[in-house]
Structure formats: C-alpha cells, structure tokens
C-alpha cells in the first residue's frame, strides 16, 4: 500500500499533469462528479458579460455576470488540481472586472492577477489546496456594486475522497438587489447606491430572479431520491437563513466545509459563504426553498421550488385527513348560499394576470393552486365560488391589510398570515381581484375601481399604518 502511495507521489512529481478543460454549467445545474483519482491541470475559461435580464416578472435589471447568468457558471475541480484560470472581459462591456475565488490560497484570491479591461483577457494559475464549496466574486472598485449587480458564483473543490453519490445535485445562490423602486415596479430598474449602502434591498432572490426556480423552472426530483444542494450566498449584504419548507436536511456541511451536521431545519449562510445540504425525498409534493427571514420570501422574491413526483407515502405524510365544514365563522358558512352564477365580464383586463403573478403567486402559486397546509388555493376554491357582497369587502381588506388567522377553503383549514400587498392603487386592486375571481373557472361580477375605492374607504380604521419602505 505504501509503495503504491509513494509511486503515485513520484509519478505526480515527475510527470506533467494531464490537461483538461473544465465543464462549466449554468445554474441550477452542477457538472458531474469528477471520477479521476489523480490530480490534473484544469483549464477554466470564464467570460464577463454585462446584460439586461429579468429580476422579477416584468422587472428588468442590468446584471454584470460571470458567463451570462446569475450566479455565474458552476466550476468543479478536484482537491490537488492545478487550475489555469482565464478571465475574459467582453469588448462590449463598459467596465473592468476581476475575480476573487475563495478557493484560492494567495493574495486577493486572484483579484489583482485577473484585473481586466473590456476587450481583454487575463490568466493566473492556482492549486486547489483545500476542498469545499466556495463563492467567487468580482472585487473591482466599487466592489459592493459589482457584487450587487450579480457578479458571483461558486466553485466546488471536490475532496480527494468524494462525498457519497446522490441522485441529483443542484446549484442555488441567494443574492440581494437594490433598486430605487420597491419590489415589482415594471421596467428597467437602475441600481440604487443609497439603498445598497443602507442595506435595504428591494429584492432578495435565488439564482438572480424571483422567477428562476418556480413554475417550469422548478427543481425536479422523484420520491425515494437523494438530493444535494450546493447553496451559496452572494450577498452583498444579507445573511441567509436557508430553509426548505417540508423537508429536514439529513446532512448539512455548514459553511461549505468538511464536517457534517445531521438533521437540520434551517442553516445560516453568510454573505460570501456557502452550505452543502443533502436530504432524501421520502414523499411527493412541492417543497419550497426560502430564506426564513421570511419577509424576504413573501415580499422580496426569495422563493424557489423543488417538485417531487412519485407515489406519495401516506404513512409518512397523510395529506388531508379531515374534510369538514368549520362553523367558527358564520359569515363564511352562510355566504355559501347558492346565488345565480354571473357570466364573466368583458371588462377583465389582461393586466390582472401580471399583477397576480407579481403580487400573489409567490404564495398562492402560479396556477392559483396554493400550497397544502400553507397557502389556500384560489383556483377551484369554494371560498371564491359565490362571492357575497360582504366577502367582496373582505377580499379588499385581505389584500390591503393582510389576513391573520383561520380560513377554511375546500374544507381545509389554513391558519397562517397573509401579509399586506403594497403598491396597488384602486384600479390595480380592482383589476387583480376581477382577474382572480374569474380565472381558473371562477366567476364573479367585475370589481370596478369605484367599488374598490368605496370598499377601501369603508375599511375599519387602523391606529398605526404599517410602515412602507420610506
């Protein structure tokens, strides 16, 4: 055995390392595990691109990226590899950039060695001494702004003895973004230096967009599989309380290090740090990735989904067991009296869907299906089947003031908190309520701006108005 190790060591000293080019992947994908058992000289080429992409539905932002995505391309090398790193700054870019890889041992993590003007490229070489999951980011002045515009990603230095095989690996990085306008304001939103310095983000998102991991783009897995998430936090300011609703992490490698902690609900990920989390999917359903500093999820976009398909395990999670009318709220019970169905109206504006997606779908989901046990459905919802006049007022109140406490929908009890939705004037509120109450087979007379105005004015007074951002 010793002879083998000695001869391997000699081999590595006397022979030039085999060369290979690193396969880089866009988020949320991760390059396949490295099966080599000896070091190599790995060439990594990363191109800096400044480009406009969507930060949320209808919200554009000028991102500065490593490879055209936020986070940048995922880099995977093996402990002991020699990495030849090329940074290319596209000629159409305005600014010089560089890269600091936290996996690098050496001054600046490569920053000064990779300082590159637009239309130029730089090279430096480092040895990956320490295994683990590391953030990389731009460190050019003003460094905070470069990071705030999306210049971060991750490099995984796979240990010599790799982690156990899993069925799926994914790449998720949280980041905070700073625009003058609050969450959801449409159009191209410029970077706000003031808000960044004050550490008051308007967006906190996974993978560079409030929409990057929802709907068709949700992470996918099957019942019985094990999943490993390489999770990072680009910052620039916030620390993440990373949590997956409905799952317990079987193993967490806190801060991307080598020792695992077992059975963790929420793991803290510092800005410029990471965590590797692993869990087995024991039953089916949609599991929600959040920053459990939870207003960021409900109001600023830090929500992703993992959709798990396959036979559910009723012994592990029963699903709905009780389907009964709850009589605690007479008004709800009595309002389910049949009234003649009204034909949907011509006044339904297409804007309603956009408003719904921007303001409601984070909880009620893109198809209005809700999340069992957490957020009531709006689609095929008996609560919206026959909307009494009183309930029209309730709906206005829920949206503007929020709703705390029990709600029964389709016989399921929901006991949660709906936060008030900011930024809807009477016209927008009427538009979105009309859309919701007529989408997915729902049917109700349109809400007019006048009606919403009256209902709003009829709301009970509140002593202290919830504070906005300013």
């Amino acid at each position: 055995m010793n002879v083998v190790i000695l001869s391997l060591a000699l081999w590595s000293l006397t022979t030039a390392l085999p060369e290979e080019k690193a396969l880089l992947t866009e988020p949320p994908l991760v390059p396949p595990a490295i099966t080599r058992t000896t070091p190599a000289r790995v060439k990594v080429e990363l191109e800096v691109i400044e480009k406009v992409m969507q930060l949320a539905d209808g919200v554009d932002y000028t991102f500065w990226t490593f490879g055209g995505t936020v986070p940048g391309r995922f880099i995977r090398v093996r402990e002991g590899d020699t990495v030849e790193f090329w940074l290319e700054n596209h000629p159409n870019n305005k600014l010089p950039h560089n890269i600091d890889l936290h996996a690098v041992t050496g001054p600046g993590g490569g920053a000064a060695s990779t300082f590159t003007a637009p239309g130029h490229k730089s090279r430096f070489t480092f040895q990956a001494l320490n295994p683990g999951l590391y953030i990389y980011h731009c460190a050019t002045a003003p460094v905070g702004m470069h990071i705030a515009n999306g210049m971060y990603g991750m490099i995984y230095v796979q240990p010599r003895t790799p982690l156990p095989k899993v069925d799926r690996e994914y790449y998720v990085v949280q980041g905070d973004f700073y625009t003058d306008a609050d969450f959801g304001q449409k159009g191209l939103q410029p970077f706000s230096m003031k808000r960044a310095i004050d550490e008051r983000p308007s967006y906190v998102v996974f993978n560079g967009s409030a929409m990057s991991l929802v709907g068709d783009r949700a992470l996918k897995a099957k019942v019985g599989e094990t999943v490993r998430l390489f999770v990072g936090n680009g910052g620039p300011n916030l620390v993440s309380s990373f949590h997956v609703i409905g799952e317990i992490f079987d193993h967490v490698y806190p801060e991307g290090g080598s020792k695992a902690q077992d059975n963790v609900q929420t793991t803290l990920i510092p800005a410029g740090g990471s965590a590797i989390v692993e869990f087995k999917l024991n039953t089916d359903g949609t599991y929600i990735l959040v920053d459990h500093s939870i207003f960021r999820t409900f109001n600023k976009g830090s929500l992703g989904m993992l959709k798990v398909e396959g036979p559910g395990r009723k012994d592990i999670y029963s699903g709905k067991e009780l389907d009964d009318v709850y009589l605690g709220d007479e008004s709800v019970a009595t309002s389910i009296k049949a009234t003649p169905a009204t034909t949907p109206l011509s006044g339904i504006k297409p804007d309603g869907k956009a408003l719904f997606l921007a303001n409601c779908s984070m909880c009620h989901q893109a198809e209005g299906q809700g999340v069992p046990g957490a957020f009531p459905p709006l689609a095929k919802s008996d609560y919206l089947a026959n909307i009494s006049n009183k309930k029209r007022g309730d709906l206005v109140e829920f949206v503007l003031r929020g709703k705390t406490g029990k709600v029964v929908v389709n016989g399921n009890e929901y006991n949660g908190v709906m936060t008030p939705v900011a930024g809807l004037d009477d016209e927008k509120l009427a538009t979105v309520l009309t859309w919701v109450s007529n989408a997915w087979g729902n049917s109700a007379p349109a809400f007019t701006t006048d009606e919403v105005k009256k209902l709003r004015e009829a709301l009970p007074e509140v002593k202290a108005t919830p504070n906005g951002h300013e």
Partner: protein
Amino acid sequence: MRALRLLTLLVPAFAFAGEVVTLPGGRFAPLFGLDVGQSAFPVGTFRLDVRPVSRAEFAAFLEGNPAWRKGKAPKTLVDERYLATFTPAKHPAGPVTQVSYFAARAYCAAKGGRLPSTLEWEYAAAADETRRDASREADFAQRILDWYGQPNREGDLEQPGSPRNVYGLEALHGLVWEWTDDFNAVFVSGDNRQDGDTNPKFMCGSGATGSARREDYAAFMRYALRSSLTPRSTLPRLGFRCAYEVNP
C-alpha cells in the same frame, strides 16, 4: 511640423470644428491623491474641448498624419483593436473611440494642445448644469451611476447628447470614457479591498490613505477603468478630448 501645417490647411474642412471653453482655476479634491491634512489641490486656468473628439475630426487628423492610420500605426503604440470599426462616414459627429493613449496624445499635440490631466478632467467633470462641484451631491452621482448601469447599445455613440455643464462642457459623463494624460498615476489596485492599505508604490505622497469619498461610486469606476488600461489599449467606449494652455 509639416504635419501641423497640413493640418492647419485642413481645419476649415472639419465638419464639426471643435469648440473650446476656458475653465477658471480653483481648488478641487479628487477621489485619490490628497495627503493627510490636505483638503484640495489647486487647479490652474485651462481650456478644454466642449465635446469628445469626433470621428470626423479624427478622420481629418488621419488625412494629415497617415502614420496614425489603421494598419500603419506602430504596434508598440496601439493594440490590435486600434480603430477596428472606425468609419468616419457613419455618425461623423459621434466620438472617436478605439484610440490608444499615444494616438490621442498625438492628435492633441497636432492641435496645439495636450490631454487633460486627471485632476483637470475630474475638476471639469465634477460640474453639473448649475454647480461647479456637484461631486458630493447624491443626485449627481446617481445620474452618472445610471449610465454605468445601462449596458452598451448599438447607436449609443451616434452623437453627444448630454446637456452642457456650468462651464459649457458636454458629455463628460454618459457617452464614453476619456483618456487623461496621467491616467496611470493613481492605481486603484485590482483588488478593491486593498484600497484601504497605504501603498507607497501606488500612491503619491507618504501617508496617503485611500480615497477621499468612499461613497463616490462613479469616480471609483472611472479610476478603476483608467487603472485597467495600458497606453496601447483601445476600447470600444474609450475616447478623449484635448486641453490647451490659456496662452499658448
């Protein structure tokens, strides 16, 4: 000298003859370079082109100075991208870009001027439409940042479009970066986090401790851009304008 005379003959043919204004001297605190206890540098009176040098103006210069044409200019003075997409007929009033430091200097010398110093350029560019030094005003900085936050688009370079500042100067921000004569005298180190270190190699004067205005992100970007250049560099968004002594 012959080139100069030839140029003089060509001047009336300039489609967009350069307007020049005189800037009164004053005192100015740039982002970098002040010694401890020093609040500002004196800036002497000088003259400066109202706009960045246009493609038409540079084309006229090439007529009289064929040694600076694309393919003729020595490789030690220009990089591979020198004037790569230069077509004077297209948007002749737009600023010339993809010009190296050496080429910009030669142009200004031929016009009887020079490149402005970084201090002069920053002094001129600190003014907005109503204030001579708006560099500490949040609204001014944010306006400039908004430009840096937009990606480059086709057509951006068609013509200078910014309003005139109090000196009568146009487009110091929002169009192209501009060469300065001592662009590499102050280094923002490639690694922003080291800026707080005193680095005698990079900073003039002992005891210089980084920047005067931590919150002036726009100025940080200009210094960073300049630091990333070599004198041969040519960028698609880097042009220049010339300065002149008051009594040449």
